[in-house]
């Protein structure tokens, strides 16, 4: 790893691009900006990476050697609302419209400037944090703060180390304050369709999450942050108005 930043710190980006030179240069730039980057050269590899890494953002070239890149959009949208940005040399309106209709979030035409790409990635991350997030992409709920751009969770101002699955579980719950999130929905969004019915993953993850949050907050205010709805799922306490 050539980056001076901690590669595990930032949000994970899945970069799907068949041209090795473009993949290498865009990947290098993203890593230098603190993102974790997972690279794929075709649709099959992209879907494998999606299952393993559950990235926070997907950058997707449409002209891939094995299949049309839109297949990746369709697959991801069956499971999660992860932001997908299309990077394509095809500039026609019809192509853009089709990609957006299938569920892509944004469209960047090659050759793009890196500053523009970064701005669009940040905007996508902010949007994915849900309506509860502020303009900086930070969701606050009591003493808990989730910064989706920096990919950091803080409790009372102090960073808490979470695994990617714990981070995503918390992100999904925080995005829907006061509302019920079923276990099935959490499973699909955090682990993927293949884990349908494996509810024990959710129990373990949520209990780990509660422990870490409680540990970081000696005041005890976070003990009842995540409420269990028996047999159905979880609900995060609605933040008190400030």
């Amino acid at each position, binding site marked *: 790893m050539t980056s001076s930043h901690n590669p595990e710190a930032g949000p994970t980006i899945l970069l799907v691009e068949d041209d090795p030179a473009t993949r290498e240069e865009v990947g290098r730039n993203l890593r230098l900006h603190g993102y974790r980057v997972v690279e794929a050269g075709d649709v099959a590899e992209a879907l494998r990476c999606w299952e393993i890494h559950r990235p926070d953002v997907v950058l997707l070239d449409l002209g891939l050697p094995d299949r*049309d890149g839109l297949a990746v959009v369709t697959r991801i949208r069956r499971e999660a609302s992860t932001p997908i940005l299309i990077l394509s040399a095809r500039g026609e309106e019809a192509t853009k419209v089709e990609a957006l209709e299938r569920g892509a979030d944004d469209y960047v035409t090659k050759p793009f400037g890196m500053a523009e790409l970064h701005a669009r990635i940040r905007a996508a991350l902010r949007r994915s944090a849900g309506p509860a997030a502020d303009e900086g992409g930070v969701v606050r709920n009591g003493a808990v703060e989730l910064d989706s751009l920096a990919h950091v969770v803080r409790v009372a101002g102090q960073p808490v180390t979470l695994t990617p699955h714990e981070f995503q579980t918390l992100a999904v719950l925080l995005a829907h304050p006061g509302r019920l999130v079923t276990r099935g929905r959490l499973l699909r969004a955090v682990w993927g369709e293949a884990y349908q019915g494996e509810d024990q993953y959710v129990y373990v993850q949520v209990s780990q999450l509660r422990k870490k949050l409680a540990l970081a907050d000696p005041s005890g205010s976070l003990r009842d942050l995540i409420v269990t709805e028996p047999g159905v799922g979880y609900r995060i306490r609605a933040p008190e108005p400030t």
Partner: protein
Amino acid sequence: MDLRRVRAQRRTVLSLALTAGSLIVVSGLVAVLEGPIGVPNASSAYLLAVMVSAMAFGTVAGVLAAVGGFLLYDFLFVQPLYTFTVGDPGEWLNLVLLLVGGIVVGQLAAAQRARAQAAVEREREARALFQVSRALATRSAMTGVLGEIAAIILREADLSRVWIGLTRAAGPERILADTGGSETTPAPTASHAVLRRMPGETPAEWVRVHQPGVRRSGAVGLLAHRVVIEAGGRTLGSLWALRDRSAGQPGRPETRLLAASADQIGQALEQDRLAEEARAAEIARQSDALKSALLESVSHDLRTPLATIRAAAGTILDRHLQISDDDRRASADAIDREAEHLNRLVTNLLDLSRIEAGALRADLEPLDLDEVVDPIVERLGDRLAGRTLTMELPRAIPPVLADPVFLDQVVTNLLENAAKYVPAGAAIRLRATAGDGKVRLTVEDSGPGVPAAALPRLFEKFYRVPSAPGRSRPGTGVGLAVVRGLTEAMNGRVAARQSELGGLAIDVDLPIAPAVVAVALAGG
């Protein structure tokens, strides 16, 4: 003398002879009937002669026979004999009845004859029209068929010459068919008849037209008849027919044949025009589709390296980033490499347009293949990454006569093409063999290959091998077209085939450099 006039006179004489003959025969019959047999009044036997004459030669002959019979009977058999005086007033009645009956029978018989004749003429007209429409339906070119139509009309109608002239863009008529053969086509005569056609059922009529100032020409005694050929309200030309003045106006059947033929020619011309327009539109559509396909693939191929360049430049120029020297160098290398790649794309496109314009001139010189190939392989290094490249260039291969710049482009395109379409891990082989006055350079791979049906089209401009649905293979369809253009400019040949490695093999045959030149160069 005119043949037609002779024929008409002969017909008149014949009809008179037949009428007279039949009257004499009937007179003999009456003599026998009234004499030995004792029939009191056998005058009605003259009706036989009336019928024969009317059937054979029409109303006039019938009436003639009736009057002749009346007179003969009066003269030969009515008392007092051998005078035209009638003694017994009762005989008057017989005679008048004979005359009236004769005229009526003659009229009826003649009408019957006219109907039969009309049926024959209609059948003839229908056959002629059928021939005209069949000639048009089976036409391959309009000009050939017009001569055939003119010949049909001449054969079936009472005309002495037929010709067809067509106008193009309101210009003067150009004669495209003429039954007059080598004779010069009659110039527009001062006076001719034009068929004026009426809407609906009203029969068309011939109208004489006088053109002042046009010199009088054409054979004396002949009158030109003109039927305008039109379609969709536009005049396309004329069907001309030359006819004997003494024969009078063309009859109904002839007029109908001329008018219907002109209509059919007009419709066929209109069809041809519409087909031509449809063809032109189709060609325009296809060339539009080709252009947009080219623009699409060229823009893809140009934008991809530009994306890399902008990403690398973005990394180097970002003031917020702490970049290591290694990262900076890697990005700068990428910019350099992709700029070179772009340059090759642009060169290919320019070469293609020079090949198209025929503006390609090869500077041929003896070249050693390995000296050409080695720098290319070195330059392409990154693009070939992940593929095993085997090179078989035996020392014994003689130098080829080629243009160094062209040959470089040919080999680069072949290797890039192979690298582009074969998956990582596949083998690419570059091999040279000599024989038969030429050196064969083969670039082949173990990739997915090309369907046999696509092989012959591989070197066509903008041709892309059809891929499975949903797959997209970027490419302009320019690289291999340039390979062929440049190779042929160096007097070489290029061909594609299935490789024994499993993928595509492309053979480039180049002439061996003449030994004298090679030796002289080696010595110098």
